């Protein structure tokens, strides 16, 4: 066996916080051979990123390696001087970060930034460094590299920025590349292009790669070996295919089950006692009575903003009571704008909206809080951290719409009703007195849902309700939503960028692109057999666990 | 950055070298230069322009000559101007006709304007015509000396000039020695006359056309004036030129800084220090401090006689006996001045016909309470007491003591500190019930004080008193030639003043002239400024 490039023994990393020291990594050991591709997967708080930062010694000042060794080419990284560390950064190991735009200096031309990285390790002329930077831009397939040399990060798309980041990282030919969530936040099609590029470059140059990600599909597709971390500990490591096909550790099992795939069903996402749907028989969806008006009838919706940009060119849809419709598209497709107009939080420029046969589109958003339909149309927001008033307790959050819309007064009845809502979303009632910052992401998401369903609406707009959640939490929340829908006969307008989730949750799906509808139809049919090139591209870009890894070089 | 630094070093080195080489030369010029700082500023070169400051008067006294000027006398061992001795300035001599209606001036033959042209009677005529005709400050002043019309001024020949008076007026001659009737180079001034401005006011504001002892070198209004000596000038005592070759008049608003400057010897003379600074500098004994009670000025506590409750004479009397004069004098002036209270009039009558004289009033709360009761305010009343911001250094402690003391007889005072312009406006509009202000008379005679400060509906009648008897006596006294009768009139007026107590003359503050020990010749002048021509260095 070849000597490992990187050897981590019993690594412990401790952060000092206001609540005292917190151990983020608790005894991780692993090794990496030269040229190998390793995935580290785990949910937030699992310590996967911290491990990556510990290896490069780029931890926050509050974080310290409290125990263990990290050997890189037999050199003890934990004991390196700052000078040799600096020497090693970039030339021996380099890192690629999440949020590529933020990771680049906003006021320095990208060519100069790459040249800086080159000049940090080699004594060559500035001219030569610029030449090499240009070559690197070509290598990461940036179009018009000569022109882009003098561009600033804000002039480039997220994907382009990430390529520049890659160019910087490989500029001094390191033997180890650590990519920390390199494509999180990018659109799915961009994600595929960037990951393919990264894999190819690593393979070409024989660089060992550590891919840190929360996305099992991504790890499965691009890594030969995968380790799973949970709460600072490494719980399982195996070949990617083995790991995902036959997970050993209960946590891995849970994780694999919770990751939606093209064939997943909501019922299968959660195993064990947390499975809510196991207890509730899946009630048949109500069939609309003939002759009644559709629940929602939207015609020719257009949204132009004051500055002249057109967010939505034309949008029409019909939706029956109890139906669930998915709205998918990449960033900028207009899906959030559409959902807010239907919710009457935003005025449309043109078009009509009828709810239950009555026009609500003519009511300005400013006055809609007084309309009787207000309680019938509710919304669940994307980021649970931002969707709760920091000064309200969980109880206040849920009670608020009840008091405003159902006319309830402070008292036992209200308390009763709030508890009921909380229990419906699986929120223990002892958490009701807490403030948002004292709750976990999943708990906050539940409160957001409880608030939305408190007044028993008929249409629930879900704006990326699980995008900010870990997969295991997402799984539970999705199940919860599905159950609520079945119990209450709710209609869902489900806005998401995650095709697998939409396929699972929605009967029908509408694909949006640049403010216009590209395609719509029954979800399974649409995804299994896309009619348009764009939809096909979208579907193919989704990394799925079942796929065989494309870059198993090494 | 580095460049600046090296230049700075170079600069330092150069200064050092120069100090060694050129030190004595500079010291020499320094000795011949008089540097004067003041809190106010010079704003015009023509003292006649409405709004002229006292400092502007002082400068004009050096740049222009008048026909005559005041002599000086010693008062308590200090030199002060003498209203009764008028000596020639541009006039070599003058005659007053026996009936007192004609004054003839014989001009100096050698007198020349600063541009070299001789001073003639025509120039005098134009200048005095201007003073009584143009809409300028001189007009109102000369009025007090019965000088009202251009027809009163006659050119006899190039060197002789005659002034005719409608009535014999004691103040006619002294008026010609004040700052307004300056003698202007009429040919030069006429060259700058315009249709709207027949008296060249605009041009003379920023230029001089005089024959005075000093010539303007630079004039930065509100900042500084630098003057150089007119070597041809010989109107000083004994036919001499002015002593100092150069004169710097500079504005330094901070009183404490002025005190520092004169103490450090960077400034030769300053007259507007705070009383506390003057006191401490006097105590240190390094400098000369010449402290002259401003015998032509008075600080009053004034009450509006037309406004309730001060329309009741007993209220005014109550106030007069309720003020802690000694404490006020000590705390506000640090005892620097001449108090006008706490006198004893042996027979209860004024001992003199001069004005002002100390009155027999002192702190006596029982008496005050009795008067207040008699006035129908046994429990007192509430009113405001105002003073202006510019006077705060003395008025503020004074007001605090007044408030404290009046509270003891039930009068509640709200102290108002008004910006100077607001104060003067409200005084003019007679809106203030109770305040402190000062007055100054350039030509301090009893009838002048009473006529200007106790009669008529005008700004300077602070107490708004309207007493026909007082007015009549004051008017009569004006043209009273008999000294004995005049004295009797004065006693009568003083008695009315004490009886009616329209306002309370508190004191005559001192003019504290603080100067380097080498300075000689300082005289307290009518305009309460330094006459730079008086000064010399030992």
């Amino acid at each position: 066996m070849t000597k490992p490039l990187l050897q981590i023994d019993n690594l412990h990393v401790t952060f000092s916080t206001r609540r005292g020291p917190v151990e983020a990594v608790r005894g991780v050991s692993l090794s990496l051979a030269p040229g190998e591709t390793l995935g580290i997967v785990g949910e937030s708080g699992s310590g996967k990123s911290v491990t990556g930062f510990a290896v490069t010694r780029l931890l926050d000042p509050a974080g310290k390696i409290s125990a263990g060794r990290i050997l890189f080419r037999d050199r003890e990284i934990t004991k390196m001087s700052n000078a040799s560390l600096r020497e090693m950064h970039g030339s021996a190991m380099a890192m690629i970060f999440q949020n590529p735009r933020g990771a680049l200096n906003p006021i320095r031309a990208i060519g100069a930034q790459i040249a800086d990285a080159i000049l940090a390790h080699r004594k060559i002329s500035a001219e030569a460094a610029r030449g090499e930077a240009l070559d690197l831009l070509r290598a990461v397939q940036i179009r018009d590299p000569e022109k882009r040399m003098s561009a600033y990060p804000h002039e480039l798309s997220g994907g382009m920025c990430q390529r520049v980041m890659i160019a910087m990282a490989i500029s001094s030919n390191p033997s180890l590349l650590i990519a920390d969530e390199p494509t999180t936040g990018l659109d799915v099609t961009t994600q595929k292009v960037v990951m393919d590029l990264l894999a190819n470059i690593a393979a070409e140059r024989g660089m060992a790669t550590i891919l840190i990600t929360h996305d099992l599909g991504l790890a499965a597709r691009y890594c030969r070996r995968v380790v799973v971390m949970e709460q600072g500990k490494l719980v399982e490591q195996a070949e990617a295919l083995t790991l995902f096909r036959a997970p050993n550790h209960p946590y891995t099992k849970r994780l694999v089950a919770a990751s939606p795939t093209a064939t997943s069903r909501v019922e299968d996402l959660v195993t064990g006692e947390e499975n809510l749907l196991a207890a509730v028989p899946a009630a048949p969806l109500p069939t609309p009575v003939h002759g009644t008006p559709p629940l929602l009838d939207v015609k020719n919706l257009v949204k132009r903003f004051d500055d002249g940009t057109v967010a939505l060119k034309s949008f029409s849809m019909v939706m029956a009571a109890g139906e669930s419709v998915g709205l998918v598209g990449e960033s900028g497709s207009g899906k959030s704008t559409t959902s807010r107009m239907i919710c009457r939080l935003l005025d449309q420029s043109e078009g009509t909206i009828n709810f239950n046969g009555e026009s609500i589109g003519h009511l300005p958003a400013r006055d809609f809080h007084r309309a009787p339909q207000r309680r019938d149309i509710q919304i669940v927001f994307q980021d649970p951290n931002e969707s709760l008033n920091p000064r309200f307790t969980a109880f206040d959050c849920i009670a608020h719409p009840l008091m405003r819309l159902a006319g309830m007064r402070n008292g036992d009845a209200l308390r009763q009703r709030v508890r009921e809502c909380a229990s419906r979303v699986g929120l223990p009632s002892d958490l009701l007195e807490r403030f948002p910052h004292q709750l976990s992401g999943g708990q906050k998401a539940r409160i957001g849902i409880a608030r939305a369903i408190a007044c028993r609406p008929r249409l629930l707009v879900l704006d990326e309700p699980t995008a900010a959640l870990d997969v295991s939490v997402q799984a539970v929340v999705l199940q919860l939503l599905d159950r609520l829908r079945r119990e209450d006969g709710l209609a869902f307008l489900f806005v998401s960028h995650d095709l697998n989730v939409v396929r699972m949750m929605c009967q029908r799906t509408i694909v949006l692109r640049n403010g216009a509808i590209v395609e719509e139809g029954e979800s399974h049919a649409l995804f299994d057999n896309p009619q348009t090139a764009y939809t096909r591209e979208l579907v193919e870009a989704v990394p799925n666990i079942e796929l065989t890894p494309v870059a198993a070089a090494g | 950055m580095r460049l600046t630094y090296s230049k700075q070093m170079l600069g330092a080195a150069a200064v050092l070298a120069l100090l060694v080489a050129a030190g004595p030369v500079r010291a020499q010029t320094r000795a011949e230069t008089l540097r004067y700082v003041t809190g106010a500023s010079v704003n015009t070169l023509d003292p006649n322009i409405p709004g002229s400051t006292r400092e502007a008067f002082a400068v004009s006294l050096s740049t222009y000559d008048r026909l005559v000027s005041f002599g000086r006398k010693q008062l308590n061992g200090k030199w002060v101007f003498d209203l009764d001795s008028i000596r020639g300035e541009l006039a070599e001599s003058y005659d007053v006709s026996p009936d007192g209606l004609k004054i003839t001036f014989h001009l100096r033959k050698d007198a020349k304007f600063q541009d070299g042209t001789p001073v003639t009677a025509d120039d005098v005529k134009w200048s005095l015509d201007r003073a009584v005709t143009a809409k300028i400050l001189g007009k109102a002043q000369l009025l007090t000396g019965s000088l009202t019309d251009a027809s009163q001024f006659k050119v006899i020949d190039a060197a002789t000039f005659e002034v005719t008076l409608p009535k014999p007026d004691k103040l006619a001659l002294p008026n010609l020695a004040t700052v307004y009737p300056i003698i202007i180079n009429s040919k030069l001034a006429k060259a700058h006359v315009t249709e709207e401005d027949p008296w060249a006011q605009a041009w003379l504001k920023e230029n001089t056309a005089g024959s005075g002892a000093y010539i303007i070198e630079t004039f930065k209004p509100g900042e500084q004036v630098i003057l150089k000596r007119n070597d041809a000038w010989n109107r000083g005592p004994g036919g001499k030129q002015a002593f100092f070759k150069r004169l710097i008049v500079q504005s330094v608003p901070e009183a404490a800084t002025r005190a520092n400057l004169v103490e450090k010897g960077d400034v030769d003379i300053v007259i507007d220090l705070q009383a506390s600074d003057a006191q401490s500098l006097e105590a240190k004994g390094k400098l000369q401090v010449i402290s002259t009670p401003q015998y032509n000025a008075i600080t009053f506590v004034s009450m509006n006689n037309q406004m309730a409750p001060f329309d009741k004479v007993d209220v005014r009397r109550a106030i007069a006996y309720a003020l802690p004069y000694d404490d006020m004098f000590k705390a506000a002036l640090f005892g620097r001045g001449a108090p006008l209270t706490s006198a004893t009039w042996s027979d209860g009558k004024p001992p003199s016909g001069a004005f002002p004289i100390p009155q027999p009033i002192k702190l006596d709360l029982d008496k005050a309470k009795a008067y207040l009761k008699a006035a129908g305010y046994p429990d007192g009343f509430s009113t405001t007491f105002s003073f202006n911001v510019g006077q705060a250094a003395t008025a503020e402690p004074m007001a605090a003591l007044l408030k404290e003391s009046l509270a003891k007889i039930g009068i509640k005072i709200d102290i108002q500190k008004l910006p100077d312009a607001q104060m003067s406006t409200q005084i003019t509009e007679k809106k203030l019930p109770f305040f402190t202000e000062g007055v100054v008379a350039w030509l301090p005679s009893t009838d002048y004080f009473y006529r200007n400060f106790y009669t008529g509906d005008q700004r300077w009648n602070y107490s708004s008193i309207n007493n026909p008897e007082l007015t009549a006596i004051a008017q009569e006294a004006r043209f009273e030639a008999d000294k004995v009768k005049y004295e009797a009139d004065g006693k009568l007026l003083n008695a009315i003043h004490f009886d009616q107590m329209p306002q309370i003359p508190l004191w005559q503050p001192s003019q504290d002239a603080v100067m380097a020990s080498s300075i000689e010749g300082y005289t307290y002048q009518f305009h309460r400024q330094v006459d730079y021509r008086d000064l010399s260095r030992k």
Partner: protein
Amino acid sequence: MKLATTAKRAARRFASSLPALFGVLIFTFLLMRVLPGDPAVFFASGPNAGKEEIETIRKQMGLDKPVPQQLALYLYDVGRGNLGRSLMTGQNVTKDLKERLPASLELTFSALLIALVLALPLGILAALRPGSLIDHGVRLFCALGVCIPTFVSGLLLIYVFYYLLGVAPDPTGRVDIFISQPPSRTGFLLIDFLLAGDLDGWWAAFKQLILPACTMALFVIAPLARITRASMLASLGSDFVRTARSVGLSWWRIVVTYALRNAILPVITIAGIVFSTMLGANVLVEKVFSWPGVASYALDALLSSDYAPVQGFVLLMAFVFVIVNLVVDVLYGIADPRISIG
């Protein structure tokens, strides 16, 4: 291209600030008319000043006309560049301001320079070691600077350096009165003396300037150091600095080229604000040091209800404010490539 967009932005910004200038003009005019003092009465203060004299001044100032007409006349005059005449100095306000503005500007520029020279390193030091003794020391030093009224620190500095130690020249204006003034080219004495090649003149002016400039600087170090520290902290903790570290750039390069250059952007904005507030607020410093600047001029005028100088001063300050904002904009535009799209 970059320059053109910056210039266009500046022009647009300037145009959009014109209504504010107009507002300032009207507002000041009205405010001055609300002042209870009557300038005519105040200036007709000679002994024996009568009603006639007051009327003369009133007519001369145009105060005999109704207020709307006064305003119209005033606007017409301002439009022609005539700010009226000061009763106090007897001069045209435009002329007075023109003579005095360089003094104020020179003082304010020097003060800002001193403040920046001190505040930037202090802020950076504090940001490099947050929570350390240095950090607390800087914080305390800055807080101390703001808690002394400028007139007290000014008088104390005079007392110590002029009166007690005798190292500073007498605090009477911009340059020793016995030193001949350089030919006025820029109005800034430090520059004029250099142009004239008069080094001891320069040194004299410099010595005169240093105390008032320090007095003013002391008061503004705090906001500058604070923003430097905060933005430096933000930029040191930013992702792109981490990126720079991850590719092995030198410490110096990271701190200066990456962190500092980004951190300097908000400092530019604050420095602009500080400059314009200082220029308007150095009344007290100018008073204490007998500095012949515009602010002390306005103060005197205000206390004597001399309308024209106050109105002129306020308009001038508003104008300077607009210009400073423009300069900040342009600097920002040059320093930050993101601006042109925003």
